[in-house]
């Protein structure tokens, strides 16, 4: 295998990594917000179920969750799982990351001073207006560093998709390394991850800077 072939094969794997990464973010960032609302629900059973969901998502390995999401429908209900692998991967990643994002959002919302809510209430803002116009914009600024951490972790966590035979860049690196008895694929994968995370950090840094106009 020439270096060029190795590089192009792994670049294709990197695209699959990025696809999983982007779709997971698109799903889990908004879902996390819904989870926070469910957790803060005044109807206690919903709040309890949400607590259990977050505890399970954070308390068990993501790889195990992926296997359960994929094999669960067959072993529990006998459903055919043909062609369901990528969907299962997405569900697994999104559900897991939504739980982490929900906790980050919650800590941000809880850190808001009560005075902001009271000022909005006196001015006649509805609950939704208060959240969307006063609370959320400030929460986003507060939680951005934690979100950045989580997003960078996600880039690396995509390698767990190999558990469901998803040929992302790291499992390709393992395969090529084994067949070529070479460490080079790991080096290439490392560079790919580093570049991807550098881009993520740069983008997040820009967003953070754009919010530094106030303290």
């Amino acid at each position, binding site marked *: 295998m020439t270096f060029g072939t190795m590089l192009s094969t792994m670049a294709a794997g990197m695209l699959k990594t990025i696809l999983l990464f982007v779709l997971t973010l698109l799903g889990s960032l908004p879902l996390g917000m819904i989870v926070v609302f469910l957790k803060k629900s005044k109807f206690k059973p919903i709040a309890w179920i949400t607590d259990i969901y977050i505890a399970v998502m954070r308390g068990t390995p993501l790889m195990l969750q992926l*296997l359960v999401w*994929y*094999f669960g429908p*067959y072993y529990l209900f006998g459903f055919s799982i043909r062609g369901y692998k990528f969907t299962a991967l997405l569900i697994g990643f999104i559900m897991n990351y939504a739980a982490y994002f929900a906790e980050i959002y919650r800590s941000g919302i809880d850190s808001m001073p009560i005075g902001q809510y009271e000022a909005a209430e006196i001015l006649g803002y509805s609950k939704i207006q208060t959240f969307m116009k006063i609370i959320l914009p400030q929460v986003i600024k507060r939680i951005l560093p934690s979100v950045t951490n989580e997003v960078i972790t996600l880039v690396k966590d995509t390698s767990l998709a190999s558990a469901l035979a998803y*040929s992302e860049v790291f499992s390709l690196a393992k*395969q090529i*390394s*084994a067949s070529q008895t070479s460490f080079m694929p790991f080096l290439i994968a490392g560079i790919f991850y580093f570049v991807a995370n550098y881009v993520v950090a740069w983008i997040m840094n820009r967003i953070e800077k754009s919010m530094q106009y106030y303290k």
Partner: protein
Amino acid sequence: MKKFLAIGLTVLTLAMLLSGCNTKKEGKVFKHGFDLDYPPYSYIDDNGEVGGFDVELCKAVCEYNGWTYEAVPFNWDAKDAELNAGNCDCIWSGFTRNGREDDYTWSMSYSDNTQMILVPDGSDITSLEDLAGKAVGVQTATSAYDLLQDSEEGQGELCATFASLEIYDTYTIAFNDLQAGGIDAIAIDITSGNYLMSGNPGYHFLDEELGSEQYAIGFRKDDTELCEQVNTALQALVDNGTYDAIGQKYPEIYEFLCLKPSNAQ
């Protein structure tokens, strides 16, 4: 239940691989490097202990040479790094020498191995040609995988006819997926396949072989002396019947054991 146990074991394996193994003992310590999830050659047995044909044979070799046995289970992908770093003295875990002849110092071959296609009973796949357009599973970095990737001497052309080649971290997951209907067939070593089928009736091999090879013990290239000591011990264990006795505990591979007593050669 058994299937979820298998999933649980996979996770446990990972945890153990991460923790590694670093105990210090006096005298000559022989560090046996192996894949923890490659039954029946090396695996965790029902008591949670490390076991398998290769493990037992290696322990017998150590006992014969007066060495202290040390288990070094590792991630199969990291086998070369582990060996070159000196974390283990050998790779001894159903390790195929074919195609890697020049990369290691090899012991004598102690077991034959054949790569087969494993399908569920009642499958419409009856020959290698029938695999065209099917989803086939394989474990990464195994001889079956190498065979399907090799277009010159292996089965690369056959692989190109598959609808997809699904590459798993372990055969346990691949077999789960076959049971659940996620894939149509598994390309696997005959011994590993036999082991999987022994606990799960309702599966069979295609008659046609995918390929064949020999298992041996791989040492660092400059470790010829150690290799000779192991070879001598192996032959002695064959001659005194230990090799055969251990082999009989593993009926699914017994027929592939290829070492013969010295008086018969």
